[in-house]
C-alpha cells in the first residue's frame, strides 16, 4: 500500500500541526524556559536540528512501519514539516532525537540514520522503547516511545491508508465523514 501526501495532510489534520500539542509537553517547555536564555539547545547538542530530526525519524519509520508500505519518506517529511514548529512538543521531539542519536553513537558508532535496519531495531530495543509505556516526562525509554516511536505510529494509524492497512479506512482521529460507519465490508 502507498502512503500519500493526502495521508500526511490527514494525519496533521487529525493531530494538529502545531502549538496546541504543547498541552502534552509542558515539561519540555519548562526545561527550555528554565535554561539560561542565552543557551541554544541545538548548539550545545541537547536538541537536534530539523534536518537531523527528519533523517532520524524517517530511518526509525522504516523499522516501526510495516514493510509493505511505500511512500514512507515523503509521508514522514510532510508530517514533520507541519509538526516541527516552535511548540513545546516539537522541542521534546528535537531533544529526544538528540538523545537517541547520542546513544546510537556511543553504542553503535553512528547516528540512527547511518545504522542498518537491524541495528536501528536493536538500538530501539536496547533503549527499551519497545517495552516502555510512553511518557513525555519519563525516562529515556519512555520519552523515545512518546516522541519518536509513538509519534510515528500515531501519524500512520490515524491516517486513512494506515487505517486501511488494518481494516478501518476512517480511523479514530481522522475526520473521514459520517458515512463510513454505515457501510458494510468492501
Amino acid at each position, binding site marked *: 500500500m502507498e502512503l500519500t501526501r493526502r495521508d500526511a495532510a490527514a494525519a496533521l489534520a*487529525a*493531530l*494538529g500541526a502545531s*502549538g*496546541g*500539542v*504543547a*498541552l*502534552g509537553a*509542558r515539561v519540555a517547555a519548562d526545561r527550555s524556559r528554565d535554561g539560561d536564555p542565552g543557551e541554544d539547545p541545538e548548539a550545545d547538542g541537547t536538541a537536534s536540528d530539523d534536518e537531523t530530526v527528519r533523517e532520524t525519524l524517517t530511518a526509525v519509520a522504516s*523499522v*516501526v*512501519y*510495516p*514493510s*509493505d508500505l511505500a511512500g514512507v519518506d515523503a509521508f514522514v517529511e510532510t508530517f514533520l514539516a507541519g509538526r516541527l514548529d516552535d511548540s513545546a512538543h516539537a522541542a521534546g521531539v528535537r531533544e529526544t532525537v538528540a538523545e537517541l542519536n547520542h546513544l546510537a553513537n556511543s553504542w553503535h558508532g553512528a547516528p540512527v540514520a547511518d545504522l542498518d535496519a537491524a541495528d536501528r*531495531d536493536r538500538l530501539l530495543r536496547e533503549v527499551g522503547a*519497545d*517495552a516502555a*509505556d*510512553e*511518557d*513525555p*516526562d519519563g525516562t529515556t525509554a519512555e520519552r523515545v516511545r*512518546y516522541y519518536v*516511536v*509513538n509519534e510515528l*505510529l*500515531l501519524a*500512520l*494509524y*490515524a491516517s486513512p491508508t*494506515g*487505517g486501511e*492497512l*488494518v*481494516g*478501518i479506512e*476512517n*480511523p*479514530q*482521529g*481522522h*475526520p*473521514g*465523514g*459520517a*458515512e*463510513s*460507519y*454505515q*457501510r*458494510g*465490508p468492501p
Partner: protein
Amino acid sequence: MSGAGLAGDERSDVDAIDRTPVPDADVCVVGAGPAGALVADRLAGDRDVVILDAGPRFDPADRLARQERAIRPSYGRPDVWDVGGERDAHESAGDRYYPLNHARVKGVGGSTLHWQGMVMRLHEDDFNSGSERGVGPDWPIDYADLRPYYAAAERELGVAGASDNPYAPPREEPHPMPPFEPSYSDSLFAEACESLGIDMHSVPNARNSEPYEGRSPCVGYGTCQPVCPSGAKYDATVHVERAEERGATVIDRAPVERLEHDGDDRVTAAVYATPDGERHRQTADAFVVAAGGVETPRLLLLSASDRYPDGLANGSGHVGEFFMDHLFAGAGGTLDEPTRQNHVGFYTSACDQFYDEADESRAPFKLEFFNYAGPSPVESALSGDDWGDPLRDRLRSEYGNHVAMGGLVEQRPDADSRVTLAGDRTDDRGNPVPRIEWTVGDRALDTIERANEIQVSILEELGADVEWVAGPDATGPAYHHMGTTRMSDDPDRGVVDADCRTHDLGNCWIASSSVFPTSGAMNPTLTIAALALRVADGVEARLSRGT
C-alpha cells in the same frame, strides 16, 4: 500525570483578565455547564447576568491536542480536560468506589465538553415512580409540565432524532434534525433482534446530522467522548458564548466558596476566589446554582451559617442525600465476520422495549447497540511492545469483528447514598472536599442481571462468542449525578419546590439533575436542559414581579 496543574497555564493572560464582580447584577449563575449556560442565555438580553465558573475557559484551538490526549495512552481520561489535582480532590467512602474525576469537567462548557451527547426524554412513569412503580417519591411535576420545555431543549441543543420509537413518550413535533442512519453493525443486530421479537429503534443524539445554527455536521472523528474537535457534538460553550453576545459576563477560574444570606432568607452574595488569590463578593437579586450534582450540594453545605448551621437550603436535612447514578450493564464478543466498529464514537440504535415493565423489584432499563466495540487500532498501536509487520498483523487480528451492547439501569433513591463534606481533607483553597458514599441496592443489581440476559440472548442469536459481561459485580456509574437536592412540594421532604426554587431561600434556584427525586434510566441532560429553561422562566417571572 495529573492534569489540573496544566489547566490553561499556557494562557499568559490568566492574570490580566478582569475578574472583579459585576455591579448591579440581576442574576448570578454558579456554573457554566449546560444548566447554567441555558439559564444565562435565556435571561441575558433582558437581565444583567453574571456566570461564575470554577474552571477555565478552554481555548477552542486546543481541541485537536485534547483529542491527541484522548488517543495517547499516557493520558488518563481526566487529563483530557485538565481535571484532577488539589482543585478536584474528593473522597469516596461508600460500598462502591466512585471515580468522580472521570465523571465531570470543570470549566466553561462543563461536563458536556466530555459527554457523549445521547439525549432522551424521561418516560411519563418516571415522573410518578412512587405511584406507578412503588419506588421513591413522585416528582411534583409531570411529563406534561416539562413537555414544551423538552421540545425547546431539543431545539437549543440541536438534536438529531426520529419518531420511530414506539416506547418513547408522546412528542408534538419532529426533532430539529434528521436522525443518524443506522450503522452497519445495527443491521446485523436487527436480524437477531427480529427473530427474538425485540424492537430496535433510532436514538436521539445532541450531535449534528447536518449543519445546525452555524455548527459543523459530524465529520467522523470518532472521539466524541471525551472530545469532539469539529463542534458537531453539542457542548455548553454554545450557550455560554451566546449569553455573552447578549450581554452576560462570564468569570472563569472563579470557584464560589460560599453563598451569603441576609436575615430575610434571601441569598445576598456569592463569594468567589480568583487565581490571584483574592476573594470577591458577587451580589445579585437572584441566584441560580448550577454546579452539577456533586458540587451543588457541596456549595450549600459549605455555606453553613449561624442561621443555617446544617448548610444553606437544608431545612429538610436532605442536601447531599439520595445520590444516584445510572448503572451500566453490558456484554460483548466477536463474530466471524467484519462488524466495522470505531468509525464514529456514538451509537445509532437502542431498545426501550423493557423500560416500562418496571415495578418495585425491577428497575427501568434501556439497551444500546454499540458502534465502538473492541479496540480502536490507533490506540492499540501505541501501547503494544511490537512494531513493524508484527504490529500490523496484531492490529489486523484484533480489529474488525467485535460487537457489544450497553444499557443503563435506574437506581432507587437511598438516603445513605450521599455527598457530604470530608472531615479533614481540603482542596487547593482550603475548603473541605466532597465525600461520596455511593451505595447501590438489590433492585438495580437484579435488573442489571435481567439486562445482561437479554443482551447475551441477542449476542448468541447473532452467533457471537460472548467474551465479556458487565454484570452486577463489574457494573460502574454512567457519570450522571442525580438526587442530591431533591425536588418536593413538601419542605420537609425536599430541598427545592416544583419550580426548582429552594424552599428556604426565596431568591435561590437550583438547575441540575440534583433536583431529580428519582432518576429513570435515561441519560439526564435533556431533562436538565428542559428544567433549566423552566428555571429561567421562573426567575424572570419573579424578577418582573419584584419579589
